[in-house]
């Protein structure tokens, strides 16, 4: 029983100074476990509906471009009207969606089931759905590998420049300035034109032939020209992070280089790097489809989304859907990658958001 409280007394209420009971202590315990940088970012990303939906779209498109060809009964290069030893059956060319060729129609009339041509066939009698799927696969793969190349070269050059500083930095940055001011698209067209002619005899008969001279030249062009903005970014990051106060304070409290690098520099730098790599993918897909459209992209019969759109222009009057489908897929991929990249940036790099 607490002593009766008197007004105007200086007596101290002793009950306020009792040792804390277990129940009291519970209030003081931190309720949620401490989050890591990654978990925190993921939570913010999860809350961002637009970015989350974009991620689902990307995953869906990627998975279907990888797995659909495994069970789809047609292949992207089979001309269905062409059978060995028989005259070409032109009833397979330019089928509308869910129509069938002559031999398939007789099969259906006999009660057999035939897998439908969901998007019809193209002018050479190839199943259009699988060509779109395959084109998506090619475009995504090109985008992905091109950004990996850019990421690797950009990180390497940028960190060398930022780490060594001085003359090395000065020379590298002047080179970067010049490459940066070159009009990239024109250089890409020029280099792909020439590399296509130069590479074709060189890679003949090797495994690289399957990829095609055009795609390899596209990768080379990316490796030559597109790393500059990435390396600028990383150099800037390293330069500014090195001078941050928290690095100084970590050093002052006796942290060793390894600790500073793994706990301070990498977590602060990696998000920027990954985000700009993610935003590089749509730009690579853009470039590839642009080049394919100009006839400098993948080798026939392999399709890419750009070459499908370009081929569709010839029959635009009769078969407009053949243009609309790859157009929609490209726009969807680029849009969702851009939105997802923006979401990643907002979630993992709140500093940039300010």
């Amino acid at each position: 029983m607490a002593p009766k409280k008197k007004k105007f007394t200086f007596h101290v209420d002793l009950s306020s100074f009792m040792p804390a009971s277990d129940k009291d202590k519970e209030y003081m315990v931190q309720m949620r476990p401490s989050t890591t940088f990654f978990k925190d970012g993921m939570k913010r990303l999860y809350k961002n509906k637009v970015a989350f939906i974009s991620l689902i779209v990307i995953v869906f498109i990627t998975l279907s471009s990888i797995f659909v060809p495994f069970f789809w009964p047609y292949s992207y290069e089979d001309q269905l009207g062409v059978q060995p030893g028989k005259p070409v059956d032109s009833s397979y060319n330019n089928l509308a969606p869910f129509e069938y060729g002559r031999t398939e129609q007789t099969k259906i009339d006999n009660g057999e089931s035939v897998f439908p041509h969901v998007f019809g066939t193209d002018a050479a009698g190839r199943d259009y759905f699988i060509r779109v799927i395959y084109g998506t696969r090619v475009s995504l793969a090109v985008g992905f590998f091109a950004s990996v190349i850019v990421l690797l070269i950009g990180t390497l050059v940028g960190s060398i420049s930022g780490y060594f500083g001085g003359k090395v930095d000065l020379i590298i940055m002047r080179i970067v300035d010049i490459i940066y001011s070159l009009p990239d698209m024109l250089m890409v067209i020029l280099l792909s034109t020439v590399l296509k002619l130069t590479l074709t005899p060189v890679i003949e008969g090797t495994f690289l032939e399957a990829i095609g001279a055009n795609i390899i030249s596209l990768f080379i062009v990316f490796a030559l020209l597109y790393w500059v903005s990435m390396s600028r970014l990383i150099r800037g990051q390293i330069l500014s992070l090195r001078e941050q106060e928290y690095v100084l304070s970590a050093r002052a409290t006796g942290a060793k280089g390894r600790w500073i690098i793994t706990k301070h520099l990498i977590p602060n730098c990696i998000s920027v790097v990954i985000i700009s790599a993610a935003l590089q993918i749509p730009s690579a897909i853009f470039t590839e489809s642009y080049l394919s459209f100009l006839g400098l992209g993948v080798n026939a019969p392999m399709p890419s989304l750009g070459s499908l759109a370009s081929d569709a222009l010839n029959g635009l009057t009769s078969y407009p859907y053949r243009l609309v489908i790859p157009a929609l897929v490209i726009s969807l991929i680029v849009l969702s990658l851009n939105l997802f990249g923006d979401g990643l940036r907002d979630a993992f790099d709140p500093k940039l958001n300010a």
Partner: protein
Amino acid sequence: MSSKTALYIIKRILLAIFTVWVVITITFFVMHSVPGGPFVGEKATTPAVQAAMEAKYGLDKPLSEQYFTYLGDIVTKFDFGPSLKQRGRMVIDIISDGMKTSMVLGVIAAAISTLFGVVLGAIAALRRNKLIDRIIMVITTAFVSMPSFIMGSLLLALFAIVLQVLPANGSTPAGLVLPIITLALYPMAYITRLTRSSMLDVLGQDYIRTAKAKGVSGTRIIFGHALKNSLIPVLTYLGPMLAYIVTGSLVVEQIFAVPGIGRAFVSSITNRDYPMIMGTTIILAALIVVMNLVTDILYKVVDPRITLE
């Protein structure tokens, strides 16, 4: 203009000249690294004819001599040599012919996209988070993620084939409407987003609050204070916009059969018309470099807060 600004401008001009020289050099050596030379694959040429052709175009001389002749001709006479496939025509004549059409296309597209972009962006910023802002943002997001050739093909399909209101062929003035729209949509969407975000930024500044507090009318705040300052970032986009319009015109002119420089360039790639490829690359690149230079200088002159390196 301070001496620091003058120094910066001189440095930028020197860098631009150097860049153009780099472009010329890269273009020259890259084109000459193609195996076989330009006359391989021509129909019915005997070795003697080939040698005569190579002598005529100066291809039998050592590479370094060819390079200095080429460079000298460009600098002194603005001469890019003769076209290999269109016999008897000079590259510069073909380019200046195509340039007339392409310039009209590019300038109108740039004007339209800047005008509409600024107006739409300002509306979106002033009606932030209202329905009209949402609509503008959704549409511009869609436009920004659509490659120009897709946009062009879709517009062609819609207006020229389904609705049949505009001609698909771009060789008449009416036929230029669709290519201009195609070229203008992406920069317009970009400028809209740029204006919106910079306008929102400006509207949050203290001097806007001061103006409001001393009773300046809404229109005066918007036109006298906010819009003027939020246009500075838009100015920096002029250079990239020109680069976009130049590269975009390559495919757009192809789709709509516009007789411009872009189509000439693409057909020179398919024809392997080497001097034509080189000449067009160099001129377009120089155009982009000069435009970037002008943009940079304008930016520094207009906004005195920018610190000069």
